């Protein structure tokens, strides 16, 4: 029995028809810390990836062991997911992306796949002019 029911799977499969380029989901876990959350997070990511096996790959890393990779990705906590497309766009999910954040995970996979942002031309022009790094944190709850 999976975390995604048949209706979820069908909806995600439909969304994944928009996928173009390859996407890698890098999952960080740790056996000692938040073990159950990490296990569920890994399972969720694998179930999502199985809905587009030709496009989405999954790599599971251990925060305590794969320290250099964690540092390179800026991951300090688990469970965590990095959504990478042709490059690392800087998209991270900390904690299991359930509820509304699950839709955002799927949406981020599609955006990373194409490298195309669904934003107005005006917004994209303004962002192109940024000279400083911008770190956006979005806190949410599953419900």
């Amino acid at each position, binding site marked *: 029995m999976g975390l995604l029911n048949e209706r979820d799977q069908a909806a995600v499969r439909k969304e994944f028809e928009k996928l173009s380029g390859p996407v890698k989901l890098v999952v960080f876990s740790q056996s000692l810390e938040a073990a159950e959350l990490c296990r569920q997070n890994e399972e969720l990511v694998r179930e999502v990836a199985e809905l587009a096996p030709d496009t989405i790959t999954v790599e599971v890393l251990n925060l305590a062991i794969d320290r250099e990779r964690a540092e390179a990705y800026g991951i300090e906590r688990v469970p965590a997911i990095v959504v990478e497309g042709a490059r690392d*766009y800087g998209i991270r999910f900390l904690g299991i992306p359930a509820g509304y954040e699950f839709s955002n995970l799927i949406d981020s996979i599609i955006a990373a796949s194409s490298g195309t942002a669904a934003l107005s031309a*005006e917004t994209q022009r303004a962002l192109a002019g940024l000279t400083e790094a*911008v770190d956006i944190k979005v*806190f949410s709850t599953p419900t």
Partner: protein
Amino acid sequence: MRLAQHMAVASDRVSATAIEATAFPDLSRAYRVSAVPKIVINDRVEFEGALPEPDFLGAVLRAAGPAA
């Protein structure tokens, strides 16, 4: 998170992190999260609730600009 992640795709400078608040009570406390969604940009500009794209962009530009 939707606008944030699209901004991350649009710009090399932007990164977007979704944080499940109940799983990380230390972070939620540190960023004084009392209502969600709560957005914190460069630890300088913050707001609660969803904003339309132009307003979200305005918050990003304020956070990226020189300190007042």
